[in-house]
């Protein structure tokens, strides 16, 4: 363990006010020197304490969890409530392209779409951020200059995370220097599954330090963790190490985001809030392709974490194809008929 707690996990204000636009980082002024409650500060004192703390978290009963998740999926969302939810969901999208074949041109057109998702329909909200590889950040920044849309970049040897820390830090710096306003890092799942929690913790702390005021999303890659118990432990590890977001997946592994997994992570941020007074954010990513699914996530946000999390600052969707379905459903709500995929842009 390279650092003691208290310094890294501070700096987030706890009051939901004074925000200017979705997706933007809150002013990094006056880090409100949050001191963690003694038990949480103690948890990161050394490897043993961290292990004991994570092992001491309440277990997750999969049957009960999945039952509750399925129950929440039956809430009725229609008409005005659907339109409001669709707009909210659009404003929470991290519009993403993470292909080896990405080109500056593709990223520029994606960024243009982020600004005006549905040029034919005025009043459509813009998305929260675009999410690209570090070498593509500059292309996105070019188009997004002057907007409040965030530029998220996956750094730290994404998607496997299998590289040395100095390389991960260099990757992070590249993203930030190129103009990224948010960094999405992957944790070292190998170290996590080997029980080497201290290594995972230290890496997150180091990346957070490299980020400075830039918001950090910690990708747990829940599809590789195996159990909900481990999802909960990884969530707490990410929160303890100072991650601003905990994020489910890279999108490169199946299963990616699922409702029950997101449910566990929402409980973790809710529990974190109850113990520290700080609101941290959650981002499911991968596999959320249609409006119906997105609305189910919003119901979970509302009923598991609370109304305060219905906010692009505190909840995001990592997605590429979701946006078009949201736009089509939005048109169906506002225009009274469904027009189909040829009426929305493909990039």
């Amino acid at each position: 363990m390279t650092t003691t707690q208290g310094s890294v996990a501070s700096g987030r204000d706890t009051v939901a006010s004074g925000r200017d636009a979705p997706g933007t980082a809150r002013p990094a002024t006056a880090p409100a020197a949050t001191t963690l409650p003694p038990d949480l500060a103690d948890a990161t004192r050394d490897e043993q304490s961290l292990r004991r703390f994570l092992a001491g978290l309440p277990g997750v009963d999969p049957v009960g969890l999945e039952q509750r998740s399925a129950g929440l999926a039956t809430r009725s969302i229609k008409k005005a409530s659907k339109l409001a939810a669709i707009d909210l969901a659009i404003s929470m999208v991290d519009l993403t392209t993470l292909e080896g074949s990405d080109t500056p041109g593709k990223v520029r057109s994606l960024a243009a779409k982020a600004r005006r998702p549905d040029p034919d329909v005025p009043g459509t909200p813009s998305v929260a951020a675009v999410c690209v590889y570090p070498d593509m950040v500059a292309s996105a920044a070019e188009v997004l200059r002057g907007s409040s849309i965030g530029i998220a970049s996956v750094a730290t040897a994404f998607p496997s995370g299998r590289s040395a820390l100095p390389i991960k830090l260099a990757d992070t710096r590249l993203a930030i220097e190129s103009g990224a306003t948010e960094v999405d890092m992957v944790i070292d799942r190998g170290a996590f599954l080997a029980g080497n929690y201290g290594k995972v913790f230290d890496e997150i702390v180091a990346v957070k330090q490299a980020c400075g005021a830039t918001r950090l999303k910690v990708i747990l890659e829940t599809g590789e963790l195996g159990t909900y118990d481990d999802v909960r432990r990884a969530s707490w590890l990410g929160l303890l190490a100072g991650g601003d977001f905990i994020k489910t997946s890279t999108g490169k592994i199946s299963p990616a985001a699922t409702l029950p997994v997101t449910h566990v992570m929402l409980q973790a941020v809710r529990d974190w809030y109850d113990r520290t007074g700080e609101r941290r954010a959650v981002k499911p990513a991968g596999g959320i392709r249609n409006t119906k699914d997105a609305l189910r996530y919003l119901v979970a946000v509302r009923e598991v974490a609370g109304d305060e999390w219905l906010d692009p600052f505190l909840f995001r969707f990592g997605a590429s194809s979701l946006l078009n379905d949201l736009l089509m459903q939005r048109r169906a709500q506002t225009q009274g008929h469904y027009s189909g995929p040829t009426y929305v842009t493909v990039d």
Partner: protein
Amino acid sequence: MTHLDWEYAPAPESAAIGRIKERYSMFVGGKFVDGRGDDLKTINPATEEPLAVVSTASTADVDTAVSVARKAYDDVWSRMPGAERGKYLYRIARGIAERARELAVVETLDNGKPIKESRDGDIPTASAHFFYHAGWADKLEHAGYGPDPKPLGVAGQVIPWNFPLLMAAWKIAPALAAGNTVVIKPAETTPLSILVLAEIIADADLPPGVVNILPGAGDVGSALVNHPGVDKVAFTGSTAVGRAIQASLAGTRKKLTLELGGKAANIVFDDAPIDQAVEGIVNGIFFNQGHVCCAGSRLLVQESVADEVLAKLRARVATLRLGDPMDKNTDIGAINSREQLDRITALADAGDEEGAERWTSPCPVPDRGFFFPPTVFSGVSQSMRISREEIFGPVLSVLTFRTPDEAIAKANNTPYGLSAGIWTEKGSRILGMASALRAGVVWSNTFNRFDPTAAFGGYKESGFGREGGRAGLGAYLQEEN
């Protein structure tokens, strides 16, 4: 930009699907006939508006019904091969499934329970009970009651208002599978769904007299269980009535099973999956407005996690949506009757007087209809009425314990013994606790799960006999010597 306030859309199910008629009659000898008792008006407890008029039985009608049931037993049903009886039961099971949506609406309008519970719980499970027992009808010799077990004769059955159709299925299906015929009395406030079931039974061409349904009040029930032509009595309801039935049947040759009240302990250990335990606590006491005899109405939580569990519980309960039972978003519906609402109110007030700390969900409460907001009492001790008496409403009493032995002592320190819940990640503790708890059903890391294959029944003042599963069949078969 601050966060968006976002509400769900109201999604009321259409009352028209219930096809509620203006008038319903009793079902005797395969026909719908008016009884000689007074008419009763059944109301929608969520609106207090009348739903339908139901003709009730008189004691003379009880005589008629028992004699046609006897004739049907002697002439047809007891002689019919089991495989044939099974076909009728399958037909009824399918009939319930086919008219599930209609039945769900009828049940919700008449009882006040949320449509999502009648639709997803009561009706499918009622159908499942007929399917399950249909399977037994031709396999009774394999049930462990001898090589050729015989039915008992005419079963007189009295069912409560909390799960009107489901309780009808619990009673009728095993009786018919075993070869008995049935005279059954639904509760005064909830006669409608079983009369729709009567239509399904009629459509299934069940031989006349095999199932007879007599709406009415306690006098009809009393006449039925005391009728000399009845061979077997099955009652689900309050302990007071059950005690009276047992007293009046003592010394007769009638077989008796009783499913009575409960005051179940839901025991949460410090190593429990806390979030799921909170769900289980909510499901345990707020399911069906707490109108559940096996409801987990006493929460026993280990002292070391009591504050955490209570805080999470309150946060969770505050998200429960109380209101129009016909709205698919509603989690908690209406209390079945004004009488029951008054009883819940009085018992909750007793909790205040005895010094327990009351917490009530801040949910809005409709200004008409019978509603009681979810309520949690903390600081409860064993001596208080709210921890001893069955409240039969959405009221939870929270007690704490320090050791497993203390949990067992407190859980068993009740006149009742119908169900219990254990929440722990430790398997050996589940097994140890389950064998130490004097309760008919012990759930671990879940609560209020029902299945036709699982026997259900109580200890002590929660009654005796089992329903469901192989054991439930035994209650409708003669013991071989």
